[in-house]
């Protein structure tokens, strides 16, 4: 156990348009500290390593137990959740940077609204609104529940998109999380009402075809969601629908 001080190198940026710069921080080591608790300590006493006063670091976090998905950042160059990144298990100096494929708002806080926008475009919801009470929906079979539950654990952290070689500005690829949510809502007996529209949406530019099956998404996902299985299943469903539509037309 390292009892010496803990060293952080943090990439900072005051606003979306301003230039980024690095700052170093030194904290006293204590048991159980993680990256978010360290950022909290820096906020309480915002002094750089050489004692200069600075501003607290901006970052997103909420649950502190890896269920809200807000604290994703690059830690030593790799995308992961900061609240579950234990300092004792990290190489020092610990480098913190904002996710690289999302616009920086300030410091470590990025705008991940693209995922929300993608979820809307594939209609990732169960349509239950009507002008009258539609009553209880059909029951999910036990088997479907077992398939659906792991998918429903997505925390929208966007790690799977950050590490995907195909998710970038040239492709505008939708990313694994959204594809997996299509599978989740198509599995749902009431959600399946929008199945065709969801699959159709995934055939648009930036759709499922852009996946090169590098499988980084499934490696990184903090919730162990079977993303490659989702991509294969939805990939097959999309092909079936595309060919079917061609023949029915």
């Amino acid at each position: 156990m390292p009892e010496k001080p803990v060293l952080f190198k943090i990439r900072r940026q005051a606003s979306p348009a301003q230039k980024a710069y690095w700052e170093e921080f030194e904290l006293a080591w204590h048991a159980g500290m993680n990256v978010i608790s360290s950022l909290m300590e820096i906020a309480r006493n915002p002094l750089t390593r050489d004692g200069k006063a600075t501003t607290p670091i901006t970052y997103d976090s909420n649950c502190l137990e890896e269920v809200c998905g807000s604290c994703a950042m690059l830690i030593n160059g790799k995308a992961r959740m900061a609240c579950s990144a234990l300092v004792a298990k990290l190489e020092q100096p610990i480098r913190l940077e904002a996710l690289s494929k999302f616009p920086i708002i300030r410091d470590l806080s990025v705008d991940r609204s693209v995922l929300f926008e993608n979820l809307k475009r594939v209609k990732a919801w169960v349509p239950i609104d009507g002008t009258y009470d539609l009553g209880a929906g059909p029951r999910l079979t036990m088997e479907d529940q077992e398939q659906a539950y792991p998918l429903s654990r997505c925390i929208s952290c966007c790690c799977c998109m950050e590490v995907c070689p195909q998710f970038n500005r040239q492709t505008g690829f939708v990313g694994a999380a959204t594809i997996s949510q299509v599978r989740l809502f198509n599995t749902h007996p009431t959600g399946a009402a929008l199945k065709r529209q969801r699959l159709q949406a995934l055939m648009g530019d930036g759709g499922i075809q852009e996946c090169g099956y590098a499988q980084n998404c499934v490696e990184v996902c903090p919730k162990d969601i079977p993303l490659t299985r989702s991509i294969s299943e939805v990939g097959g469903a999309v092909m079936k629908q595309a060919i079917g539509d061609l023949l029915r037309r």
Partner: protein
Amino acid sequence: MAAAPSTAAPIKLPGGVSPLRAGQGHSFLWRRLHSLTGIVPVGLFLIEHFFSNAYATKGPGAYTKQVAFLSSFPFVVTLELLGIWLPILYHSLYGFYIWYRGDSNIRDYPWAGNWMYAAQRWTGAIAFFYMGWHTWHLRFSGVHILTYPAAAFGKVQLEFHSPAAVAFYAVGIFCASWHFAYGLWLFAAKWGITQGPVSRRRWGYVCILIALVFMAVGAVTMHSFMTTPQQPVEPAASELDSFTMR
């Protein structure tokens, strides 16, 4: 009920990835066509090509017969053009375009699948330059093999006259075998044929076997060309008579 698509513009900061363009564009068609051409017809042609060349292991006579058989197809040049050249050209050029638009990141994320993603691009590119060299030498320059099948064996033998050329052929065969075999694996994963991790792993073993078979057949074929005494490359007089009338 399905809600109307959102009209509110999302907050736009510079540098972001644009969201899915649902219902727009044709990239689905082009990308899936790229995937398909890798198997049909390019992959099928690769199988045929390795198989036909393996006739070299049965000696120059058998090899000449096979070349003559392939050359005897009706509309042979049209078949070549539509069944081989255009699909390979499409798969290659679109493959380079796919490569250009992706951001390989094995330095940050050195995982097996990510390595294979990068390898699929490099093996494709090497195969591309190899095929350019190979077809220029054997199909588009020198004695015309389609017209003079008996010259084919000797012409291939001439390819192996320097160790560098032998190495280049070995690398070309290795890359084409690898690219095709992993391509079969990718195709099954992307088109929803192998959906679960177990079936993907098992199909992976089969694909490794396919790669090894291709490499072995390639090696044995090269060995036959290199160990047989040099065959004549000039078309024989009798052949000239029978073929010039065509």
